[in-house]
């Protein structure tokens, strides 16, 4: 009801005094106090001669505390939009007094003595002049945008994370293409050499065929890994849970490794009691095989690999201990993420996609379990996982 004359009032400065005659002083004070933006009026000496209720709320000072306070009070700190301290000559009041011109929509941080984080405001200020055209008042209004700014920062952060994920994905595609090209190159070169031999009437050797088969197997393995990751990341892998004896499964895995590495000594106690566990047999086999393959790869041929099982009340824990070089703490944290190897193009050392442990982690997580590694440089590493014996609880 009181708001209508206010709209009329906004046309011309000269009308203010006329319009204000319709209002009592109390009504004005009430109206200003109920405004959402903070309003502060400074005198020519920059001392505050009026402030509304919102100003007290935003600045964290009572009206009594505010009145008489100068804008250059050392307990106040203003920040620029980028977070740097704002010099006094950039304060809105100083700027308006110096230039005699208004300031529009300046973003300012206010460091309140009672709050750890700055309060951010968007600030407008304009001068009022006396009859001799000297600035005699500066009217400053400001709206609290701390929440909006926080939201924008959160969005920026989320966007950065998303952009980084895209870069990682693209980089991953580069690495994958690179890895696929190596067996393709070997395959192609062997075929070309064989073709040239055939053209000269020389026979194809069995060893060449075996080499070709090896490169195709390698290609197939890479493609399977890629598909696995894609399906696991999209949540397309459904576990086929059944009760499986972990001891028998471990013995199967060991037998399979012995086929590929007949000289390797593997320590695993015989005649252990059955430990039935609800699991996807093929997937857990895949995880254990990955552990054993890695252990085999990084352990010198004259050293052994040790396998341990801990039958706990709820979980079963499988451990594979190697006598390899050990893993630095930095690498330990990254090991179960994709692309740990070949992360930097100048650090490319070993072939492969480096996806094995990432896939293992995803499989164990699907089982409601945990995966990890303990390692000391020079003392080898122990890879372990544990899963609930009664199966994953959804």
């Amino acid at each position, binding site marked *: 009801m009181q708001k209508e004359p206010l709209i009329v009032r906004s046309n011309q400065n000269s009308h203010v005094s006329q319009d204000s005659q319709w209002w009592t002083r109390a009504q004005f004070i009430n109206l200003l106090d109920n405004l959402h933006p903070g309003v502060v009026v400074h005198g020519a000496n920059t001392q505050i001669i009026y402030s509304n209720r919102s100003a007290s709320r935003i600045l964290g000072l009572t009206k009594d505390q505010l009145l008489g306070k100068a804008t250059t009070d050392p307990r106040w700190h203003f920040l620029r939009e980028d977070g740097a301290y704002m010099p006094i000559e950039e304060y809105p009041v100083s700027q308006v007094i110096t230039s005699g011109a208004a300031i529009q929509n300046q973003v300012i941080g206010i460091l309140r003595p009672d709050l750890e984080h700055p309060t951010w405001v968007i600030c407008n200020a304009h001068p009022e002049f006396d009859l001799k055209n000297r600035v005699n008042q500066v009217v400053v209004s400001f709206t609290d945008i701390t929440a909006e700014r926080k939201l924008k920062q959160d969005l920026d952060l989320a966007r950065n994370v998303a952009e980084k994920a895209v870069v990682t994905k693209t980089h991953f595609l580069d690495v994958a293409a*690179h890895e696929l090209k*190596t067996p393709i190159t*070997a395959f192609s070169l062997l075929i070309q*050499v064989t073709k040239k031999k055939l053209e000269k009437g020389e026979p194809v050797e069995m060893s060449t065929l075996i080499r070709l088969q090896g490169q195709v197997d390698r290609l197939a393995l890479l493609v399977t890994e890629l598909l696995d990751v894609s399906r696991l990341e999209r949540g397309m892998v459904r576990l086929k849970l059944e009760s499986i004896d972990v001891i028998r499964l471990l013995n199967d895995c060991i037998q399979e490794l012995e086929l590929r590495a007949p000289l390797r000594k593997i320590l695993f106690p015989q005649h252990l009691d059955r430990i039935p566990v609800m699991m996807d047999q093929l997937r857990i086999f895949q995880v254990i095989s990955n552990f054993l393959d890695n252990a085999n790869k990084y352990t010198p041929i004259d050293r052994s690999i040790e396998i341990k099982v801990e039958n706990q009340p709820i979980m079963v824990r499988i451990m594979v201990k190697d006598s390899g070089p050990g893993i630095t703490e930095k690498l330990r944290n990254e090991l179960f993420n994709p692309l740990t190897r070949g992360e930097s*193009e100048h650090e490319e*050392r*070993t072939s492969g996609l480096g996806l094995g442990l990432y896939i293992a982690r995803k499989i164990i997580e699907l089982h409601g379990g945990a995966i990890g590694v303990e390692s000391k440089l020079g003392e080898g590493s122990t890879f372990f996982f544990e899963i609930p014996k009664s199966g994953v609880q959804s």
Partner: protein
Amino acid sequence: MNDDLVKKSILIVEDDQDILLALKTFLEEEGYSVRTAENGFEAMNLLNDGEMPNLILLDMKMPVMNGWQFAIEFLAKHDHLSPIVVMTAAADAKQRAQDINAIGWISKPFELDTLLKIVKKYER
């Protein structure tokens, strides 16, 4: 080959044994004397005898000592005594060759006949 009596020599540095074998077989058929190394470290050791090859075919991604590390050590020790041609599956083969001051590059996979042209172009 201008001189049938003196074979030109090539050093292949490549960690994939099948690629190594195919290239060695092919280049020997073409009349080159071929030495091979499975990583940069082996290659540096081979070159300790002081016999500089007429060309080095260098893979980039290898264990122990990769192509970058080899190129740095080689240039520091032997300057540009042997021209280096980079063999890489990377998308930016040319850039990688420039990174290590190599004279040429070939993108994997490649045709043996293309390789032969490149070898003949850059061999010393």
